[in-house]
């Protein structure tokens, strides 16, 4: 009798302890500010970048490239005389895809075909001069914002404290478990939710330390003034046209990262996560008792 009462009391205490809702301060002001400025910059960089791509929707490898030189990627719109319809053709290496309606040729709200590699809604219809202006202005903002974030991350210990995987996270068993959790869309709770998971950390580190420097350096390689100051950029990217191609690939990877990021936020409690990126405060859900 006495024993079972005691057991029941312990069980109740444990339940209340683990079901306690805990609020932690997750994001510093610097991270929150640079995050939202990043969003603005990335959106405008992407839109103006697609507008720039549309002016010459071919990518090459090497130092030179112009109509007639073999492409590694292209999006073209053409009139198909057999079907008497416009068609959009996307070429990746030797593969040809019919992308009518999505890339190459799109249809406006009245159903009229509109030529252009990327559709009007993606580029806001910016012409070359305007797209260049916006792209470069946003590139400056992006770089300045990124530098502030980088210095903060380094000096405040944010990189080391929040982004560097802990030794227990690097154990194969943990990594496999984390992949399995991702596949089942199972979210960490309790103590595990207080830190980023290992896949998340690797993704953030890859973006911050590989993708962003690569997109910046390949962008600079397209500038004759910048390559005059840093001619090694040509060697790093195997030429200006290769740099343009790599810049485009990096932009796509960055977009992919953002899409996955947004999906993850939607799946993991969008309200809580958005609030944490605005106010800094994040609610930790209790561990499951069952």
């Amino acid at each position, binding site marked *: 009798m006495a024993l079972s009462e005691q057991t029941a009391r312990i069980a109740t205490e444990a339940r209340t302890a683990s079901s306690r809702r805990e609020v932690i301060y997750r994001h510093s002001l610097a991270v929150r500010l640079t995050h939202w400025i990043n969003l603005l910059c990335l959106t405008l960089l992407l839109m103006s970048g697609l507008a720039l*791509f549309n002016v010459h929707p071919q990518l090459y490898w090497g130092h030179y*490239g112009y109509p007639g030189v073999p492409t590694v990627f292209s999006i073209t719109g053409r009139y198909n005389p057999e079907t008497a319809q416009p068609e959009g053709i996307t070429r990746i290496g030797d593969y040809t895809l019919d992308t009518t309606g999505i890339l190459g040729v799109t249809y406006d709200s009245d159903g009229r075909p509109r030529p252009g590699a990327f559709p009007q809604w993606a580029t*806001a219809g910016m012409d070359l*001069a305007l797209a260049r202006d916006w792209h*470069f202005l946003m590139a*400056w903002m992006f770089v300045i914002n990124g530098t502030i974030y980088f210095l903060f991350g380094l000096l405040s210990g944010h990189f080391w404290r929040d982004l560097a995987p802990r030794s227990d996270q690097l154990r194969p068993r943990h990594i496999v478990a984390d992949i399995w959790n991702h596949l089942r869309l199972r979210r960490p709770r309790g103590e595990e939710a207080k830190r980023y998971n290992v896949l998340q950390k690797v993704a953030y580190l890859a973006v911050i330390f590989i993708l962003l420097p690569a997109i910046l350096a390949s962008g600079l390689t397209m500038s*004759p*003034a910048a390559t005059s100051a840093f001619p090694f950029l040509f060697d790093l990217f195997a030429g200006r046209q290769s740099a343009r191609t790599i810049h485009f690939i990096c932009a796509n990877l960055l977009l992919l990262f953002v899409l996955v990021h947004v999906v993850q936020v939607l799946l993991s409690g969008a309200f809580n996560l958005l609030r944490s990126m605005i106010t800094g405060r994040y609610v930790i859900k209790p561990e499951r008792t069952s």
Partner: protein
Amino acid sequence: MSRIITRRKLLRAGAATAGTTLLAGCDRFFESSSMRPLLDFGQLLSLKAHRLLLAGQPLVREYSLDDISPDFPSNGTAMPEGFEYFQLIANNFENWRFKVDGLVRNPLSFSLDEIKQMPSRTQITQHSCDEGWTAIGQWTGVPLAHLLNIAELQPEARYIVFHCLDQMTDSEFYYESIDLFDAFHPQTILAYGMNGGGLPVRHGAPLRLRVERQIGYKNAKYVTRVEAVDRLNMLGSGKGGYWPDRGYQWYAGL
């Protein structure tokens, strides 16, 4: 006449209208004149940063003969219109006179042969169009610095304007301008030769500018007169070039 407006149709129309309005709003935002000062600030930032980086006046990379691209696209004018230019070609530019004037102590005038007698520089460089394509070509010409040194700039001179033979509109000929930082760069030349031969008409015969640290449209073709000025707002629409007058950046090092 019966018109049945279904909910779906209404929703679709609404979505289309909202989409169009949003897009139009987006377009207007990007083009809005209130954004202009911000964009101009971005341009200034690039110019200042590049000037800082290039303070030592390094040369742009020069390529070898093997690197020359099989073709070299001709953008903009490929053949100036009008009888005057036709006559110049017909006479092999023998009657053509090239002028250096404006804010100089010694205004100059040369024939093409006289220019070819001057010190020359040959360079194989990469040409980058703002559209995204690039080509590599060899250029032979007279360094602009040489001409400016003979003409002796007056102290007020700040920009060099290139007046061209190709007429773009009823009242405008192509023109471009650079400042003295680029004008005196060793690789800034007025080229009369390309890829070992003469300069083809589609690439700007008899003389074209090569300003290697800036992109395509700054490299004016069909240059017939070089003018030293103290400001750019006296010419065209005041932005310093045919394309800059149409919204393109005056400084195009990127």
